[in-house]
């Protein structure tokens, strides 16, 4: 008689593991800070977790240096990403192995994604910025998931903190994306790109018609001209608002994720936070994808020939 199997283990084992986890959850909840508040006693020392004190501004672990903890983390991310590529491309072989295979996979995945959207010529322009943004955001998000990462204290402040939760980092990336997009648009179309924002041609031709005596056509022309000029102003606005939305999408998601994980650790110290760790890993990837992908999308829109 064959035993039933679930997830590759026998059913009995799964049941035992579930029961153990359930006990751990209940015990950690009752023994933790929340349980202590409910029962009125003291929390057990191993479960005693401080409630999170979210602070949006990055901390300065070294009082005398203008270096924030997010900056240190950003540097670590940079070192990791750079180290990965450096190690992989130092002795490249025609037949790839190991690390080289891995970075080539990253490269090809990115290149395919970008060239599908933007075509071969523009894809080669967009590739470095979009992929670097993706890798940087991803590295920041995932390095933060190393257990104990944010618990290292220096002069009473955490030494390391997810760089994506420092508003300066998303803003910086948004600015980079913004400048790159405008540059590509200008590069692809030249001066006519500016007409996206400042288009007074219809207005001018309307005025001309008015002065040459075609009153009706002139007024209609002026009307369209004003609308077109206004649309240009809206376009300018949208480009700047885009930057803000870029910034706060990443910042908000990452900060919320960090706070959520801390809260879960505070509420139920054992087992349950692991789920949120997994979610955070997924959200980090998603946010990196969104940031890089949106940069790509807006870049495509900027270089696209207007029909």
């Amino acid at each position: 008689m064959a035993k039933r199997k679930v997830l590759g283990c026998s059913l009995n084992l799964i049941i035992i593991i579930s029961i153990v986890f359930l006990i751990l959850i209940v015990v950690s909840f009752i023994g933790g800070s929340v349980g202590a508040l409910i029962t009125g006693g003291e929390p057990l020392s191993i479960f005693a977790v401080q409630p999170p004190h979210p602070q949006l501004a990055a901390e300065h672990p070294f009082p005398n240096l203008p270096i924030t903890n997010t900056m240190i983390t950003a540097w670590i991310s940079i070192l990791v990403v750079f180290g990965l590529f450096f190690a992989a491309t130092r002795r490249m072989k025609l037949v790839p192995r190991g690390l080289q295979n891995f970075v080539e996979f990253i490269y090809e995945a990115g290149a395919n994604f970008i060239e599908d959207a933007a075509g071969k010529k523009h894809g080669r322009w967009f590739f470095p910025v979009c992929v670097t943004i993706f890798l940087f955001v991803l590295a920041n998000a995932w390095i933060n998931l190393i257990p104990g990462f944010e618990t290292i204290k220096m002069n009473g402040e955490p030494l390391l903190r997810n760089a994506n939760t420092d508003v300066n980092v998303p803003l910086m990336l948004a600015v980079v994306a913004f400048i790159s997009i405008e540059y590509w648009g200008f590069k692809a179309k030249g001066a006519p790109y500016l007409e996206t924002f400042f288009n007074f041609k219809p207005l001018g031709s309307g005025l001309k018609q008015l002065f040459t005596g075609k009153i009706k056509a002139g007024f209609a022309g002026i009307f369209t001209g004003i609308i077109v000029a206004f649309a240009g102003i809206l376009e300018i606005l949208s480009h700047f608002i885009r930057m803000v939305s870029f910034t706060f999408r990443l910042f908000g998601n990452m900060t919320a994720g960090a706070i959520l994980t801390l809260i879960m650790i505070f509420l139920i110290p054992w087992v349950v936070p692991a789920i949120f760790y997994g979610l955070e890993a997924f959200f980090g990837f998603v946010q990196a994808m969104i940031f890089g992908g949106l940069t790509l999308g807006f870049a495509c829109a900027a270089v696209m020939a207007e029909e």
Partner: protein
Amino acid sequence: MEGLGLDLPTFVGQLVSFLILLGLLVYVGYKPIRKMLDERANRIKESMEQAEATKQEYEQAKVAVQEQIGKAREEGQAIISQAAQIGDRLKEEARGEARKEAQALVERARGELERERDKVIDDLRHEFVDTAILAAEKVINETLDKERHRKLIEQAMEESTTFKEN
């Protein structure tokens, strides 16, 4: 803005860090990988083209070999038939020659025979004449009558050994 942590030095620092990462990745990562991928693509293309060319060459060679075999077969056939013809001709020639030779032999033999015959006739005639002369001498020596004459000639004839033998 204060609570959010927006801060120009941090912003600039992060920007510089990011740009450094971008530059490093372009020169250490993207460009070498691009080059490698292009090279690999080229290499694969080349080898596939080469394989295609080799295959074509093989096909061509196969056809050429087939052709050559066919040609060789034809040639062989031609040679064989030619040889047969030559053989026939030779046989014919040999036969002709043999016939000619035989004819010549026969001719010669016939000539010889005729000559021999002539000689014999000649000799015979000489002998006959000699005998006749002899007989005449005898006749002249003994004056003869007709009867006697005949007897003498016959006697002479009988005496001549040659006539007896013949």
